[in-house]
């Protein structure tokens, strides 16, 4: 009997120790490229076979690749501008979503108390009425602001980007010509400077506005999550040394939340970049439209869309890798997403303390 069991035990044992043995090798990191290289090889061979079969015109891709850079720049710059404006708007929105509920619901701080006997003395006095009225007003304003922020976020999340785009475009195209001259001039200047193809600038403006309004809603929720995931204990500790709400936010909540939201915000940029393709419905010459034109006008639809996919991958993967790299280099132990190599054995980055 033992003879029969033994080999199996040995195999299981080997499997169990395998990860440990592998662990040190993973440090060199080259294995992670094997999968990528394999994928690229398969892809390349596939493309080659299609090319040999005459289905795919590879020289076309090489020849026309450069025509994609302009539209890519357009999409990247439009997305990034909207993203940054969206971030600036999402900050107050996220703050409102995270913190206002405590400022008007009964469970919150609003229930400031006057001792009973003093309450009885104060009842109905002008001061008491004034204080109560001020408190009610503040509470009401807070509730209204929260409702506004929530309504906005739900509105953005609850409707398709496509629909939002049409709403914004029809609205803007209707009113744009009545905007002040300096504004229209500014827009012309902006989009000319960015080197966009000469389409009436209200199209770019409407596109930018759509992207901005959309991403502001999503980023607000990301930021709210970030703010709320900073431990209540730390906030209490900060209060206990005498820090005020604003200081606590600036020195504790915000820096920690920012680290926690780097990856979700990267996701958001990538989503927005892809949503940008939908703007090609209007004559905004970003990459999707460019590829369609390449495909239709020059009769190479398959090649055009292979180029399109490759360009998206190039931009998104480059961004993703850069963010991961930066994040790893600036990581603080115990905060945010752990590295690929989790646990204390991993390299905590350059911030590692000299001794433990």
């Amino acid at each position: 009997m033992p003879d029969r069991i033994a080999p199996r035990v040995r195999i299981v044992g080997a499997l169990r120790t395998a990860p440990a043995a592998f662990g040190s090798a993973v440090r060199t990191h080259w294995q992670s490229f094997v999968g990528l290289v394999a994928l690229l090889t398969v892809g390349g061979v596939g493309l080659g076979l299609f090319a040999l079969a005459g289905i795919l015109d590879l020289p076309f891709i090489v020849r026309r690749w450069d025509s994609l850079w302009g539209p890519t720049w357009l999409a990247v710059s439009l997305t990034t501008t909207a993203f940054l404006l969206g971030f600036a708007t999402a900050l107050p929105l996220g703050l409102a979503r995270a913190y206002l509920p405590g400022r008007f619901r009964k469970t919150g701080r609003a229930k400031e108390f006057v001792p009973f006997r003093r309450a009885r003395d104060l009842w109905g006095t002008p001061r008491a009425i004034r204080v109560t009225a001020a408190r009610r007003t503040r509470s009401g304003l807070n509730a209204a602001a929260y409702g506004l922020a929530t309504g906005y976020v739900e509105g953005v999340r609850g409707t398709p980007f496509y629909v939002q785009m049409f709403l914004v475009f029809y609205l803007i195209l209707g009113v744009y010509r009545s905007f002040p001259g300096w504004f229209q001039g500014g827009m012309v200047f902006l989009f000319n400077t960015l080197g966009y193809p000469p389409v009436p600038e209200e199209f770019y403006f409407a596109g930018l506005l759509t992207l901005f309004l959309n991403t502001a809603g999503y980023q607000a929720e990301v930021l709210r999550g970030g703010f709320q995931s900073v431990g209540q204990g730390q906030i209490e500790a900060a209060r206990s040394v005498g820090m005020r709400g604003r200081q606590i936010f600036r020195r504790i909540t915000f820096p920690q939340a920012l680290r926690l939201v780097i990856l979700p915000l990267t996701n958001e940029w990538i989503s927005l970049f892809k949503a940008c393709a939908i703007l090609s419905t209007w004559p905004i010459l970003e990459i999707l439209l460019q590829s369609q034109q390449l495909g239709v006008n020059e009769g190479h639809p398959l090649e055009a869309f292979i180029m399109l996919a490759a360009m998206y991958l190039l931009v998104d993967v480059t961004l993703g890798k850069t963010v991961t790299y930066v994040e790893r280099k600036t990581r603080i132990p115990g905060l945010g997403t752990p590295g690929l190599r989790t646990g204390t054995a991993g390299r905590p980055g350059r911030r590692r303390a000299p001794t433990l």
Partner: protein
Amino acid sequence: MITVRGLHKWFGDLHVLDGVDLQIAQRQALCVIGPSGSGKSTLLRCINLLVRPDAGDILLEGVRINSPEIRPEWVRQRIGMVFQQFNLFTHLTALKNVMLGLTQVKKMDRSAAETKAKWELDRVGLGDKVHAYPAQLSGGQQQRVAIARALAMDPKVMLFDEPTSALDPEFIREVLDVMARLAEEGMTMIVVSHEMGFAREVADELVFLDKGRILETGTPEEIFERPGHERTKAFVSKILR
């Protein structure tokens, strides 16, 4: 130093503090014991105004600190607090953890704050760990950083809310040692703790809290050896085993 008179606190229908009276003189160490849910933590948090009492007075050197006219930040600067869960700022090194209150609240300049913070960390025996992040420190070391952070503000009173309850047994000693030395140096402190050895050696007075009321007050010996109240007896026999 601190006088608490007729302190009441409700959480909804729950009467957490039911008329607590307490006095603590300067350079005295007061230990608060009691079953969980008896209101010990709430009492400390009221004194630090992290929780607003619903009725009663808290006097710090004769000033009624729970008056609406008094800014809670003013009070909290003067009353240090140490939490069960340490609550260090995760994104800051030990040094920065201690410095933050000095630069933000006391408005000290960076170099002065750094000197002071280093001195405080040295005082709790962590002079060699100033650049470590909380995640790189043991529980005991983290709690000592938290103590240094509170001490750096030069508080008149220190509040300890079960400072050793979240620690592995091996690290309890080092934290209690720091606290005992503080008491020796004459720091006024209120400690919620079930460390009987510590209470016996360090506390001048022991208070037994149950269901939001103080049932018994006395020296540690009196309470541990001759508890007068039935509930105190039951509780003490449980924790002394």
